[in-house]
């Protein structure tokens, strides 16, 4: 996790990124000129209060949406102008999502849920099962493979969703408020797991409004009104935050 681990070429590069929503005659600049580079193997938290543009940023980084202007380069590929199906393929190959609400499919069992990204990658039955089982083993929930999501606790379901994110062996794990629905004990477990992934070399981007969660990352990006107002190592952020004008930045 020290400098030596980080490669020169960035995994994620956002250049003058803008996302403008138009509702009626009102224009909202949800992302307003974002410049950000994230290297392979980093563990970055994107933080900001509600409405600051976190979800918009995460949607673009996650290739779920495209920017209004500016560029998004993911793993050297310009993703910013891609069509729906190309984006789907990028998500499938490069990104593992962890959602606040787990987003498991209730009618599929644990194994089938974890197999989904592999299914859409066109993997055969045997290969799917092998990779999915390995991912379930990694999060320590392999023995529950035949259970259905509603038979598991919240923490267990979140582990399944982590396994699903890992199954396709993506370059980037993108976690959106991954502890938002969990109690503090299970939250700690999930965060510890994300750390472990990062230790193993996976790039993790964490989106949260919770400072204590953000502090688990090595680098923090603070958004305000669609702009980056802080980008630096976690210890510098603590200093930055203590000096912050609460009236201005909440």
């Amino acid at each position, binding site marked *: 996790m020290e400098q030596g681990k980080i490669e020169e070429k960035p995994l994620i590069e956002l250049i003058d990124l803008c996302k403008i929503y138009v509702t009626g005659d009102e224009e909202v600049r949800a992302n307003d000129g974002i410049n950000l580079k994230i290297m392979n193997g980093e563990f970055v938290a994107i933080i900001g209060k509600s409405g600051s543009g976190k979800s918009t940023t995460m*949607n673009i980084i*996650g290739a*779920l*949406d495209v920017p209004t202007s500016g560029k998004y380069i993911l793993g050297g590929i310009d993703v910013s102008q891609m069509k*729906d*199906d190309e984006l*789907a*393929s990028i*998500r*499938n*190959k490069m990104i593992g*999502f962890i*959602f606040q609400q787990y*987003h*498991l*499919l209730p*009618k599929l069992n644990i194994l089938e849920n974890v197999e*989904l*990204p592999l*299914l*859409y*990658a066109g993997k055969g039955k045997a290969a799917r099962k092998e990779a999915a089982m390995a991912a379930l083993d990694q999060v320590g929930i392999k023995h529950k493979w035949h259970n259905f999501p509603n038979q598991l606790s919240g923490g267990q379901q979140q582990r399944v969703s982590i396994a*699903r994110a890992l199954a*396709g062996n993506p370059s980037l794990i993108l976690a959106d408020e991954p502890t938002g629905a969990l109690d503090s004990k299970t939250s700690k477990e999930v965060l510890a797991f994300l750390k472990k992934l990062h230790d193993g070399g996976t790039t993790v981007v964490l989106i949260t409004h919770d400072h204590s969660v953000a502090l688990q990352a090595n680098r923090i990006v603070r958004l305000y009104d669609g702009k980056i107002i802080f980008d630096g190592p976690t210890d510098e952020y603590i200093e930055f935050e203590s000096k912050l004008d609460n009236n201005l930045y909440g």
Partner: protein
Amino acid sequence: MNLFQGFRLAFKSIVSNKMRSILTMLGMIIGVGSVIIIVGLMQGVTNYIVDSFSDMGINMISVRVTNTGTRHVDEADMFEFVSNNPDVFDSVTPLVTSSFTIKNGTASIENETITGTAETYEKMNNLTLSTGRYINYADIKNRKAVCVVGTYVVSELFETNNVLGKTIKINGEPFTIVGIIEESEDSEEGSADDCVYAPYTKIARMSYTGTISNYSFATYGREYVEDGEKLLDDFLYEKLLDEDLIKISSMTSLLTTIDKMTSTLSAVLGGIAGISLLVAGIGIMNIMLVSVTERTQEIGIRKSLGARRKDILSQFIIEAGSISAFGGTIGILFGASLVIFIGNIVGVNAAPTVGSIILSFSISVGIGLIFGYMPAKKAAGLNPIDALRSE
């Protein structure tokens, strides 16, 4: 995602929503079922009619001519016509029927139909004689007063069955019995056993008009009848120059008409039943639209994991197709068993036809696919962000 996985997903979705799936499929079941029942029953009725008619000489053509003072055809013309068309016609007989009282002493039958025929009639109508012989060429040429009788006539006029060579009086004229037709229908009055045959030359003389206007032609089989009718029509028109004086009919053309009528009827009724398939398709579309709305989040999740438009599209189309195929299959089983059951009650040998099964099944699947397309397209076009956000 391959087809098999699509079916598995579809099956899961059907099973997990049993009540709704059954109600959705009900339209298909009733639609497919009624098409099969209607077409099967109509086929059964048609077969029944054809069967009961085919005993009655389907290779025969009946001709009735009205001779005028200036133009006429006689039996010699007809015999010549048959020998001129040997690849279609086998034989011909004039038919002269008259009602006379027949007597043996005091025993009598009033208004008995006497049929005057040529010697060819025996073979043309597959008559079997128990004793004696049929009327022969010499009888006809010499207008002999001989007759062949059925067992009903024998039993009514005689105490014994041994009547060969005995004489009966037909309209007061003595006729010698030269042959007896084998009993076929228990010697009932009005049955095939109730008959008297005599030389047509003789009966024509005795009859009121004295002319011959009816003929029966035998072709080599059902498939020659149409050609035969045409040949006859051409021939007779040339002689009589008036269609109104010529009447040609055959069991086969009657059967063809019946065939045409029943198949038109069955197409119309089947088509009406087919409309219910369309209604069923709309039901499927409706339920699929509800399903897409309900499963917006599922679609979002799948898309976030890399599902492309065509993955979602095929998932929902396969689901719609499976529901209707499943409903169609139940409809086939339901229709097939019901058509046999109804056939048994009505007393016709009705069975589901392969054509109606294939047709209604493919229409039901086709309709499922067509009506499933719109909802599937809606699902595939959903924006993953909006879909994920829906709760």
